[in-house]
């Protein structure tokens, strides 16, 4: 067994020096229903917050940005736009979606929806390295760690992504950043089988299909993009375009294979290879399978025994 009496000096992971976080924890306190307001981008997702809920805002500001480590430590009230503007100065970005100028880092993580470029930028849930949240008891809790790789203990960060603030209120996070590729281009074609794109192009950042038209985002080194464009030209007539097509408001979650037989509204935009669909109509309600609901209810009871965190919201009712 390991030495039973390890040195107990305070490691950086244990130290929470930032007074702003402690003020936020005090503000949240330990009693009464409470919810954090971000940019209200997805405010009604998983159910509207109850009327009697006290609304608080989480602290904002970038705490530490270390491009050489590909990590950024940021308070959750910071807008994704502000974060990405700061990262862009060092030619980096994160996987977080910038859905509106008001979208916050905390909101993007609590909602957990991936960006339209998920194939190229990765999922939101893998971008979160360390999380600090305020618990139902008003305590600051840290999960994960500051390094790009870490398997120390149970994975609380994964649990927080997409939890809609029902297990803890996100205060500060460390995110993994990625370099912005040298070239990024959107192409569109009226006559290309979108499923053929995935077999033709090595790693597109997005492949969308709507109303008979295919849209492809390529990112990488210039010569590689030229090579991929030549390959795409063999399967369709592609022209360069400004960006992705407009995305309808409702979001569906299907499997990539489901999209081959998709039969939803005509205005739907399909994310090929991913399974997300944006549509003018909501997806028919999904249900948690079997004992998922059992574990979810136990988690809620463990983390929020009085049900004060974001009452009215349910990550399984989105």
């Amino acid at each position, binding site marked *: 067994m390991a030495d039973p009496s390890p040195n107990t000096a305070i490691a950086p992971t244990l130290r929470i020096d930032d007074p702003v976080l402690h003020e936020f924890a005090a503000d949240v306190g330990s009693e009464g229903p409470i919810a954090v307001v971000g940019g209200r981008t997805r405010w009604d997702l998983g159910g509207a917050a109850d009327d009697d809920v006290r609304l608080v805002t989480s602290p904002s500001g970038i705490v530490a940005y270390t491009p050489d480590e590909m990590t950024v430590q940021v308070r959750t009230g910071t807008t994704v736009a502000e974060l990405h503007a700061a990262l862009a100065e060092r030619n980096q970005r994160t996987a977080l979606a910038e859905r509106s100028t008001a979208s916050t880092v905390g909101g993007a993580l609590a909602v957990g929806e991936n960006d339209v470029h998920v194939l190229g930028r990765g999922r939101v849930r893998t971008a979160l390295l360390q999380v600090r949240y305020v618990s139902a008891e008003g305590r*600051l809790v840290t999960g994960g760690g500051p390094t790009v790789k870490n398997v120390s203990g149970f994975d609380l960060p994964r649990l927080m992504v997409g939890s809609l603030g029902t297990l803890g209120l996100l205060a500060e996070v460390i995110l993994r950043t990625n370099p912005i590729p040298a070239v990024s281009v959107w192409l569109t074609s009226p006559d290309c089988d979108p499923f053929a794109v995935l077999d033709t192009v090595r790693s597109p950042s997005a492949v969308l299909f709507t109303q008979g038209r295919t849209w492809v985002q390529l990112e990488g080194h210039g010569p590689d993009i030229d090579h991929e464009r030549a390959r795409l030209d063999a399967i369709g007539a592609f022209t360069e375009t400004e960006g992705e097509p407009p995305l309808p408001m409702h979001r569906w979650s299907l499997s990539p294979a489901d999209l081959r037989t998709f039969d939803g509204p005509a205005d739907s935009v399909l994310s090929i290879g991913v399974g997300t669909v944006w549509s003018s109509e909501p997806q028919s309600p999904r249900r948690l399978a079997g004992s998922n609901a059992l574990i979810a209810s136990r988690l809620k009871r463990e983390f929020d025994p009085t049900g004060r965190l974001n009452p009215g919201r349910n990550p399984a009712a989105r």
Partner: protein
Amino acid sequence: MSIYERFKSAVGLAGESAATLTTGDPALDAVIADLVEALDADRVRYDGAERALLARDASIYGGGVAGPICFPTTTAEVQAVMRVAEKHRRGIVPRGAGTGLAGGAIPLGAPIVVSVNKMNKIVEVDLDNRIAWVEPGVINLDLTKHLTPMGFHFAPDPSSQQVCTIGGNVANNSGGPHCLAYGVTNAHVVAIEIVLPSGEIVMLGGLDAEPLGFDLRGAFIGSEGTLGIATRVAVVLTPNAPAVRTLLLSFDSVQAAANTVSAVIAAGIVPAAMEVMDQKITIAVENYVGAGYPKDAAAVLLAEVDGLESGADIDADRIASIGREQGATNVRLAETENERALLWKGRKTAFGAIAQIKPDYYLHDTVVPRAELANVLEKVYDIADRHDLLVMNVFHAGDGNLHPLLLFDAREEGVIERVHAAGAEILRASLDAGGVLSGEHGIGVEKQQYMESMFSPDDLEHQNRLRRAFDPTCRANPGKVLPMGHSCADIQALKRVPTGVWG
């Protein structure tokens, strides 16, 4: 023949059926009888030799005592075993290939050991969804070999990939050299069918883009067998890269190699892998396999980039010039696939190579910010010196993931204590530098008591809450990960049975 059976026949264990055995303890006999009924007599074992074998894993930790050993072949059989465990209030320990280095598979308190080695089928390769459904006993490299002709592979590639199982990779959230660009197991598993300790079968995650509810899949990965047993795993198929460039850079100091790693990342390049080996390990490897490493370099950096032809060339050129700017004495690009394979063979057999130097080793695993690599390494050498131990360093430099290798001869009096003392100081140095306890080996029993050095009591209490939501009675892999004093770390309840029974 499963890996376990191969191993067993290699060490000359015939294996004895549990059906004919009585242990002298009626309670235990009842457990065994129920297990025999749930599976069949051939797949429940209780002979001393097998239990001794499965009391250990690849770590240096002892103290394990295996209870009855089961070899289920289906999810329903795992469920039946779980129900027997529940009925008799026994702990259970899932086990793959037993290659873990943190003692995660060591059975504490004579639990039922559930080996997944007979659940080793690749069930389905689903190209439309770019995933494969596999059973937990499938060996990592076997999966990649199966996928290669289809143009894909499974990205996590731990050094033990020739023997380690996908179930073990899920339990440990395994990495490997190529997770620098591709990510660890968490990024490569989208759904897991598990059996909870209470016997319910649950599908965590899903093949759809954004599965409903909490990310229980993510919570399960890396939980070291403490939340249940994975019975089927949907792994992501990663397309093989059309172009790969492998570079070997030599340096006259470990610091220069570490600085090159930081400079490459700072330049906006995320190579597929960046591995550093110091001179001692390079010499050992070279004597062992003749991989073509320079024995006179203080450190070598093995860097690999992949992608399309032009981009791979651009990145390889930039890494070469960054290396030269940082003082590389030699930069070599592998010209052939053969040369490339040989360089990797050297890296991946590093741990075999050291057997010629000392009979035993302790392989450490911490992560530090890349910028701290050189400083922490200097401390590692100093710590080993002070404890009169031989240390070699071979590590995933791109991730800041250190793997100091302490070599020793266990027969030497007092040496184990020195190894543990040095290990503790290395941990301390890593944490002080802003690092973490483990990058890929996990906590197991090895780092359990250090969890309090990284996490506050509140942090640990919340980890314990996660644990309890899956396993309220704390019977899955009892006594692991969380330090003693947390309810699920406590195996006292299991210890009430007289120890003599377990021998």
